[in-house]
């Protein structure tokens, strides 16, 4: 059980080759405590709350339900990848503009959920967004402002796309 493994993870485009872990360590624990990216949070450790949501090869997953060793060779993206040079991206700005966060603990999970979802469904309706938002738990906001934020971001991206065409 406590035998050590040496693994390598690719997180936010950067390779971490020197991770000495036990096979039972979850991805979220290794991201937080070994890779040193504490933006991903642990809310329940049984796959319900979604606070630990990260993107694995572009798809949202619960990082508490995956062993770190299972993520070798895959592209992992965490909340730390969203902003660039201290500038928040459009999704993060929409969360702020819509007051889509209060305590902020669940927020990284919702951001990564939305990032993965919008990449797949850029034309999502409000109802579809609400359905996806219901994957994760938030105790502060009552969800409406999270739905607003994702909708606003999607609209903005569609408009930008329209202008680009």
């Amino acid at each position, binding site marked *: 059980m406590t035998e050590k493994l040496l693994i390598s993870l690719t997180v936010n485009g950067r390779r971490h080759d020197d991770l000495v872990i036990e096979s039972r360590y979850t991805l979220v624990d290794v991201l937080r405590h070994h890779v040193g990216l504490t933006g991903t949070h642990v809310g329940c450790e049984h796959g319900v709350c979604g606070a630990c949501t990260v993107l694995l090869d572009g798809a949202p997953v619960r990082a508490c339900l995956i062993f770190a060793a299972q993520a070798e060779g895959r592209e992992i993206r965490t909340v730390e990848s969203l902003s660039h040079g201290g500038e928040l991206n459009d999704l993060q700005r929409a969360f702020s503009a819509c007051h889509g966060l209060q305590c*902020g603990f669940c927020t990284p999970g919702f951001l990564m959920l939305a990032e993965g979802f919008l990449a797949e469904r850029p034309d999502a309706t409000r109802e579809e967004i609400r359905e996806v938002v219901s994957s994760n738990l938030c105790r502060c906001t009552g969800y409406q402002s999270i739905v607003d934020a994702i909708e606003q971001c999607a609209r903005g991206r569609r408009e930008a796309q329209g202008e680009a065409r």
Partner: protein
Amino acid sequence: MSWVGRSAARREDPRLLSGSGRYVDDIHLPGTLHAQFVRSTVAHGAVTGVDLSATLAVPGVVAAFTADDLELGDITAVLDRPPSEFVPTAMPVLARDRVRYVGEPIAIVLADNPYAVEDGVEAARVTYEADRPVVSAEQALAPGAPLLHAAAPANTLVDVSMFATEGIDAVFAGAHEVVRVRANTARQNALPLETRGAVTSWDPREEQLVVHTCTQVPHLVRTSLAECLGLDERTVRVIVPDMGGGFGLKCVVGREEIAAAAAALRLRRPVKWIEDRRDALTASFLAREQHYDVRAAFDRDGRILALDADIVCDMGAYSCYPFTAGIEPLMASAELPGVYRVPAYRVRARAVATNKAPSAPYRGVSRPQIVMVMERLMERAARELDLDPVEVRRRNLIVEFPYTGVNDVTYDPGSYLESLNWCERLLRDEGWYERREAAAAEGRYVGIGYSCFSERTGYGSTAFAKRKMAVVPGFDLAEARMDLSGTVTVTTGTMSHGQSHETTLAQIVADRLGLDIAQVKIHQGDTDRIPYGFGTFASRSATIGGSAVARAASALGARLLRLAAHLLDTTDDNVELHDGSVRRRDDHGRAVSYRELADVAYLKAHLLPKDAEPGLTASASFDVHGDGTFSNAAHGVVVELHPGTGQVEILRYVCVEDCGVAINPQVVEGQCRGGIAQGIAGALFEQVTYDAQGEPACASFIDYKMPTAHEIPDIEIHHLETPCAFTESGAKGAGEGGTIGAPAAVLNAVNNALLPTGVELDDTPIRPETVQRAIGACP
């Protein structure tokens, strides 16, 4: 333009959105040991043996301690009341010879990593001599019930009869109508998404135990820690990082944070304890399990004549610090009449001990229940008297202010009637009454329900003293400091855990000093930076904390004015603050910037007036001498009951709220919506259950149904503004109202939908099977 009243972007957001927030589990000190607890597996009994030898043999485990190993004082919360009204009960940091609930901590295990510590906990062997558990208030009060605490006969920790109007029985005997509500509300978990936790270490240089912990009440944790560990307060520093919610659960002192600190002190190594979700659901603090039997007398016109209440609160195994097991019964007793003119009132309220995890405050404390009970009484009276339920409320609402009620509480001005009228108009104008009739004609169950209530906020020391707590929270302190750059840091004794204080308090300060909020930094949650503070609970931060902060900013402004007047060769009354500088009133061209003033105050003290101190700091305090201030709101809800599933679908939710001056309207709406979501959760979903042996049945999010975006609807919010006369900003508190008003409105809507069936429901949560039974969809 003033900052107060503006939906300014939150100062907190950039770090929280980019993963740069620092919550307690994000703090990792070199050499940290990870702690978890061996917890009781029986609900009630004697501990006959604790064997930690296998634990200590687990690879990675460094130490394990029981109560006998650590010299720890007990956590004892006290009310200054006679023994007939209150029995103090000590909560040991680690259980000694007895355990009183499943999950009670017995030993602390410390290991090199968080996985090894779980192995260590699993290897511990505890033996018990089990007693018969007491798992309900009914069992607790039954003759011959086993006693949890020898000092508390009938398992009763609090038994108070705060009001008994003379002649009330005659009023009931002669009344045209007497209605009765018997209601039970389920045990709930406040459930912040971040569980509890602490990182504690000994700092030999400062000779201090440094405790990073996610608490709403840092100074109270320091006081309790110092007491339990026999330390001077100076040698304990409590620092609160970013907090992932609290909702009251984190405004009491936790046994685990004290045990972790004791272990750090003993081992001289940093100790981290992060509660896991199972412990958070089963062994943390719970709330809300109450039983009401209330009668109300009405005249033929629907005016309430008298109110008679018997309230039993199931508080679990221990009193929480500092509030005690009195938190729920005392609140319920003091506030039950609410927004209505009740001429005669009698109440008995009890707190009983049961073999369940202890209770702490949870957002709204008893008011979700008392509002529900009052609003059910209004609805029931309307039904019996064949009157419109909104009209019955109108006839009883307090409309002249200030109003001193039968509960010896003076209500400051509010907009009770206006909010209710607006709420009703919204639903009428949208055609919901016609839609309800049309639905009924099709055999569907659509109902409309309201609640109308006020929420006392800004409890000062006078109001808390009335509750007779030995620890009387009330005032708060603030310190404002200007640095050489002309920017301001303000330290407050309140502690935001999601409420946006870094923004809203900065808005208050920015207005007082003519600064941009970007030039104001609010600092909170560090016991070394301010002498004392009571933290954040009971919607006190905007009112009390905000007023202290405003006064500190004004005091700093006064220093700036005096210094500037000296430098500008004029009198104090001929200068004013303007946009980052002080200018002469008679000659706006002659001004001195904050930077220049700071330069003199710190680096050119020889230029200061003779009587002036160097530096630019100012401090202030604020307390409320009186009964506080009352925010108010009305909620209107339309529901449809689905016979197939028993589901209660919320078709429409409107709220008209009045929290005085809204410092940041977007933040106020966020508080409302989040609060309403928690209220809906209590009305329809959440229930902590135990089996007959006192084993908790809700150990995961699968068993405890916290609602998602699927269950919580969009909520429309409108604002009225009755400014508070005595807070510095005119704000009243806004933290709890949503949670308080929602259960009553939802329950009334469900009952309205059930009208054709003749069934009335008064218990929450309303279970799908209850709905199905009520509409005859299942036997």
